[in-house]
């Protein structure tokens, strides 16, 4: 029954591991960069002998890490700076599109050099959709660990929240955030956008010392995810997710269900962090191409497709009980063979 053309490329189901690697690298960089900056300040001050023993340990570790790559740490380590909200990589400045949008709303001006820095993320979102949420966002790293924790709790017999709200709420949050930014004259979306919060709070705690108010907000969103709605902040409230969803509405790279090999097991729906419906071809603009459904599919029935729109609903999977029940008369021998196998 499985034709070669219905097999996805064999590496696609391992992309989820690559995604975890990417998330871990981004998060590790957000932790490492403040330490590197602290090390830079020690180097710039020529102050090794004046440091406390713990600071000397930081100095030694960072020197061991960077010595093969840089000649003058105080200058060369400036190559990579910042976080996912806005950062600079060897002279290329990248910013979150929400930062550009929020800043334009707050100042009621269009500052095009800053929009240029958001151009690469916007272009990538137009092709890959909401990929930032699944592949880069440092808050996703913690949120997914949090939802794994929730499934452990559920396995242990404890109740965790699984309420559902309207996914369109986050567009209201985005619009209200821009309006409030324009009214108050400060970039308010930055105060509630988890990746921005995570990036700068890690810097505050390592580089300056002491958490800011954003940490409390982030802990609140973690509790919201754990106790009220699974991945609730990303699904229903995140303004950046709303913006990325809108940018990725007509994205080119999509996930498609191969109806010929699908057996209606619904594992994809269970694993989908964003509460989408891969089983009934319901991906939509919210899908962030995280490929978790591909990794979990037992019959390799999910693959990529290059198309600016989802394929319409294809009905029950051909290996599923429902489809075979409907088609026993027509295709009885094949179904019997499948059952025997």
């Amino acid at each position, binding site marked *: 029954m499985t034709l070669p053309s219905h097999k996805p490329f064999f590496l696609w189901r391992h992309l989820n591991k690559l995604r975890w690697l990417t998330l871990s690298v981004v998060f590790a960089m957000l932790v490492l960069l403040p330490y590197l900056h*602290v090390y830079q300040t020690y180097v710039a001050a020529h102050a090794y002998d004046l440091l406390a023993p713990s600071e000397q340990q930081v100095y030694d570790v960072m020197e061991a890490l960077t010595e093969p790559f840089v000649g003058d740490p105080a200058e060369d380590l400036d190559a990579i700076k*910042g976080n996912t909200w806005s950062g600079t990589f060897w002279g290329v400045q990248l910013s979150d599109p929400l930062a550009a949008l929020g800043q334009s709303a707050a100042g009621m001006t269009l500052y095009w050099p800053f929009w240029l820095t958001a151009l690469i993320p916007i272009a990538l979102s137009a092709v890959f959709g909401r990929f930032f949420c699944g592949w880069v966002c440092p808050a996703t790293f913690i949120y997914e660990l949090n939802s794994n924790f929730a499934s452990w709790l559920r396995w242990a017999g404890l109740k965790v929240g699984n309420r559902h709200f309207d996914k369109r709420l986050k567009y209201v949050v985005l619009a209200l955030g821009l309006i409030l930014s324009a009214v108050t004259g400060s970039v308010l979306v930055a105060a*509630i956008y988890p990746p921005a919060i995570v990036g700068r709070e890690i810097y*505050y705690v390592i580089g300056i010392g002491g958490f800011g108010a954003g940490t409390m907000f982030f802990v609140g969103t973690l509790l919201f995810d754990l106790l009220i709605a699974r991945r609730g902040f990303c699904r229903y*409230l995140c303004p950046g997710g709303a913006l990325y969803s809108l940018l990725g509405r007509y994205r080119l790279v999509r996930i498609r269900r191969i109806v010929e090999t699908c057996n209606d097991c619904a594992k994809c729906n269970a694993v989908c962090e964003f509460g989408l419906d891969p089983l009934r071809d319901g991906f939509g603009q919210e899908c962030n191409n995280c490929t978790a459904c591909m990794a979990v599919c037992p019959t390799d029935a999910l693959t990529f497709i290059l198309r600016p729109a989802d394929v319409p609903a294809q009905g029950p999977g051909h290996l599923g009980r429902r489809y075979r029940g409907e088609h026993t008369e027509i295709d009885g021998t094949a179904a019997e063979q499948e059952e025997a196998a």
Partner: protein
Amino acid sequence: MERRGVLQSVIAFASLLGAGVLPYGVSSLLAPGKARAKRNYLRPPGALKDDAAFVAACIGCGLCGEVCPPRCIRFHARDGAAMVNTPYIDPEQKGCTLCNKCMEVCPTKAITVVSRSEIDMGIAEIDRTACYPWVDRGVCGACVSICPLGAKAIVFKMWNQYQPIIKQGCVGCGLCVEVCPHPSLPIWVIERPHPTPQRNKASS
């Protein structure tokens, strides 16, 4: 019922607005304090002089702090959601060394690249009733020796007397505040009262 339908839609709209505003309300509740207007809190060098414009332009990415070699740039992390993590310099902790790295790295126009003599973070002021040399309690000269701008910013009153005098060339970096040994800090940085166009030239 016409009225009932209208009422329902009004309630639905209000609850939608309420749910949408909720995260912003929570974030401002978590940072309730108003921005502290301490006399010595400075904006980074090259920051827009109009503070409202600065707050509107700053996205709170923290890049200026992450490149600052003396780590003098701190952030309004708990001082009200309206300040959303905008940078400041507290010269009592650390003064600015005028290295210009924050200007170059700022992705927005909040901190613009200006030449060293056009930086205007403020101007230092000395309390002559407390400063040790001015009240004749010994020699000091710490502020004069640390000043990165030299004689156009701060000088001694006379070559053999250590009473410091602020000149109009001072840009308000706050290094003098950082090094001042007096416990009550008789030197601090204030808003420049009358910005003079010629202040960057060699003054009298």
